[in-house]
């Protein structure tokens, strides 16, 4: 009898483990899109071409394809197909954004505050955006770890929105935001751009010392009769050490050319080359340096003049960076812009005359490279994930209207079939729905009002 009980227990626990594993899998879809003008981004434009997605992966790209029975067939004659749009800077669907309590908070993680119920996710999908980089805010010189999200709308589980293949990323911030929050707001370093550099160098150096202590301990404990005591575990310093060891990609909020140049040099000193700059309005002034030493720049299409550090910007930024060989992407940092990044990318044709291929790369393969996920997404190639968007006009035309959006081969948006109200969760006690005059968009400076009393921030990015 005892043996039977033991066996039962073993079988039960095996079943439990199996079902847990099943629960953790994200759903994958099958679809056959026929006869579209396929904008592959990496392999040119293919006319009258079919794309077949099976189990969430692009199985075949070609002509006159037939698919398995469980794949819905969509006639895309006269329509355009492009890869799902990737936004490298977003705060959409995050409950909070800024752990503004210290100038370095590398230990916190945005993955902990994902809100899967935000209807903004659906609205981004209706604009063709399938992946977004959920960022910590810009209150701290070294902020928390960010998370790359796939917009699998409809789930109640925040973990389902996490793109598991994506490498770790972290947020840095330079310039007015950290100096305003800590220096002006709390009278602690950094108060100036000098202080920002010092904070970062101090953080890196402390991480090196921390690592040394652990190395010493690890060597010592192996010895016979070792009395070695481990150093106190410090997640903040461990995360900084991970950055120095190349395990985390830095995305640094920055504006002025001199501070961009500063961080490039700091990273070179510490041997860090996984560095992407974001906002980087004055990136065009240090384009040669960005091209040589970084993984690129993620910029606005045309925002400027909302703060002093962006007064000397130009809408030609993305074009100048691209022409100088910098891996450039266009981001939104806005729940509103994320819905028409195809239009924001198209502005580089007005401001700098970029070609169709160059402009489309800014919202597909380039942000994929900056997030370290270009092996999986960012172009329409066999073997990549089935993140696709169908447009009725070429996406770079102002008249383009997204028709359908697919994530992992599953249709997430359909302009003809979807109902108007896409909320997942409606409060049962709310009698009248609130109407907002200004729909507040999650921004880089959200949550730091406590520290910025007295200063008037209109666009706080």
């Amino acid at each position, binding site marked *: 009898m005892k043996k039977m009980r033991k066996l039962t227990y073993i079988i039960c626990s095996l079943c439990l483990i199996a079902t847990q594993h099943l629960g953790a899998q994200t759903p994958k879809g099958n679809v056959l899109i026929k006869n579209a003008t396929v904008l592959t981004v990496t392999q040119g434009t293919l006319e009258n071409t079919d794309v077949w997605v099976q189990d969430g992966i692009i199985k075949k790209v070609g002509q006159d394809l037939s698919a398995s029975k469980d794949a819905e067939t969509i006639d895309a004659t006269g329509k355009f197909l492009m890869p799902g749009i990737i936004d490298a800077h977003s705060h959409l669907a995050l409950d909070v954004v800024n752990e503004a309590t210290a100038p370095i908070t590398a230990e916190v993680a945005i993955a902990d505050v994902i809100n899967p119920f935000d209807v903004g996710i659906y609205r981004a999908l209706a604009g063709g955006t399938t992946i977004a980089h959920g960022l910590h805010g810009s209150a701290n010189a070294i902020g928390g770890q960010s998370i790359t999200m796939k917009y699998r709308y409809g789930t109640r589980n925040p973990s389902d929105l996490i793109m598991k293949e994506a490498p770790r990323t972290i947020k840095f911030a330079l310039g007015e935001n950290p100096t305003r929050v800590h220096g002006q707001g709390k009278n602690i370093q950094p108060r100036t751009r000098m202080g920002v550099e010092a904070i970062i160098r101090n953080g890196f150096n402390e991480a090196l010392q921390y690592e040394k202590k652990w190395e010493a301990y690890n060597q010592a404990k192996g010895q016979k009769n070792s009395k070695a005591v481990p150093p106190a575990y410090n997640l903040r310093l461990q995360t900084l050490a991970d950055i120095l060891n190349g395990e985390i990609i830095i995305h640094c909020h920055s504006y002025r050319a001199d501070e961009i140049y500063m961080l490039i040099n700091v990273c070179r000193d510490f041997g860090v080359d996984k560095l992407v700059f974001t906002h980087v309005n004055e990136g065009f002034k240090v384009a040669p340096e960005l091209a040589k030493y970084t993984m690129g720049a993620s910029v606005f299409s*045309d925002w400027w003049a909302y703060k002093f550090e962006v007064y000397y910007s130009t809408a030609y930024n993305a074009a100048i960076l691209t022409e100088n060989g910098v891996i450039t992407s266009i981001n939104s940092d806005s729940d509103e812009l994320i819905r028409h990044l195809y239009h924001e990318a198209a502005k580089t*044709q007005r401001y700098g005359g970029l070609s169709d291929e160059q402009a489309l790369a800014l919202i597909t393969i380039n942000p994929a490279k900056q997030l370290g996920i270009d092996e999986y997404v960012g172009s329409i190639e066999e073997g990549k994930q089935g993140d696709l968007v169908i447009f009725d006009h070429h996406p770079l035309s102002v008249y383009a209207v997204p028709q359908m959006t697919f994530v992992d081969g599953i249709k997430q948006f359909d302009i003809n079939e979807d109902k108007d109200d896409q909320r997942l969760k409606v409060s049962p006690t709310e009698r009248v729905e609130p109407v*907002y005059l200004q729909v507040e968009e999650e921004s880089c400076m959200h949550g730091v009002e406590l520290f910025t009393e007295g200063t008037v921030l209109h666009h706080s990015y």
Partner: protein
Amino acid sequence: MKKFNLTIYFLLLLLFPVCSYGQIEGEVLKPQNGKFLLKGGTVVTVTNGIMENTSVLLEDGKIKAIGTGIDAGDATVIDCTDHYVYPGMIDSGTRLGLVEVGSLAETQDYAEIGNVTPNMQALTAINPNSVAIPVTRVSGVTTALSVPSGGLFPGTAALINLNGYTPDQMYTGFKGIPMNFPTSARRGRWDRRSDEEIEKDAREALKNINEIWERATTYMKLEDADASLTYYPEMEQLAKAVRGDLPLLIEVNKAEDILKALEWIKEKEVKKAVLTGVSEGFRVAEKIADAGIAVITGPVLALPSRSSDRYDAAYSNPGKMHKAGVKVAIRTSDTENVRNLPFNAGFAAAYGMGKEEALKAITIVPAEIFGVDDHLGSIEEGKSATVFVADGDPFETKTQIKHVFIDGYKIPMTSRHIRLYQEFLERNPGLEK
């Protein structure tokens, strides 16, 4: 020896004007007035259809002639083959010239202290040399309404053409009095008042407005009776709205508030009123059309006001209102990116308004609303030479704007954004010094 040196300098001085025909390195380009012939392009008149292979003669600040075979005479000829000529675009709601750097209070001039300050003149506070002005006008947006914001009656808005060195040189014939109608909507997600508190605040504000309007009406009657009045600038200005000299530009967005505003206009017999904002106008479009009140709405590139709204509520709003018979103008509500006006119109066009009506919404319709359609809003003989030349549809991002004329001045096609592009496209020294 001294004399010899003087001669050299004198000669050099004489040579300078001769050398300055082309652009000398470092020379500043200035607006040029004169006679111009825009030759052989496609003229999009807005009011009289599209004319192919047609020329437009600009002289003395006016559109002198439109047609084929116009003799150039001594006019500078600009070849417009394969190009399009449009009337200058009008943005009917901006803060252009009233703020330089958004986050710096020292540069903000659009919101004065006080709840009732209709006498605050936006026009005189406009900075004609704002860096955003050249950035804007090279996009073909030539005209903007600069609007104060703040309390119930924040000031007097003014329509300006984006050329000139003093506000009076820029002023182009329209002023209006904005009124922020009491709202029962939440100001933002940070607005944590209860529903009851919001209703109470709205009722108080409406009562307040009625008292103020009453006082302004009394002032007007006394003024008309030539009574001797103490200095009361707020009422003196508001009396102009009561009398109908200046229209009220009523900012209102929530559907219920729009209906209340329409009722209020009728009840008070407001002589001239325009609704601005109107983001939920599509919900009550028939009512607005019945009341015969024109609407200025935007930005089109905006989020819906309700979480339950269809995602494209703001994109399709202008089109829906227009279909119901409302006169609709489009604004950006912006300052440094007023240049996005044609793209706002483009989205409105794509989501139901159609290209033709969307173009009207940023040309002839605002001109009519502001009563300046005698000189702006379309390409007609006798109107102001405020036009632009593009190599395609100005709503499309691929299109380049080639030439811009404002009041007959050819505008230098440069701005700080363009100069930065020219300097840094190929930086010298590059990576190595």
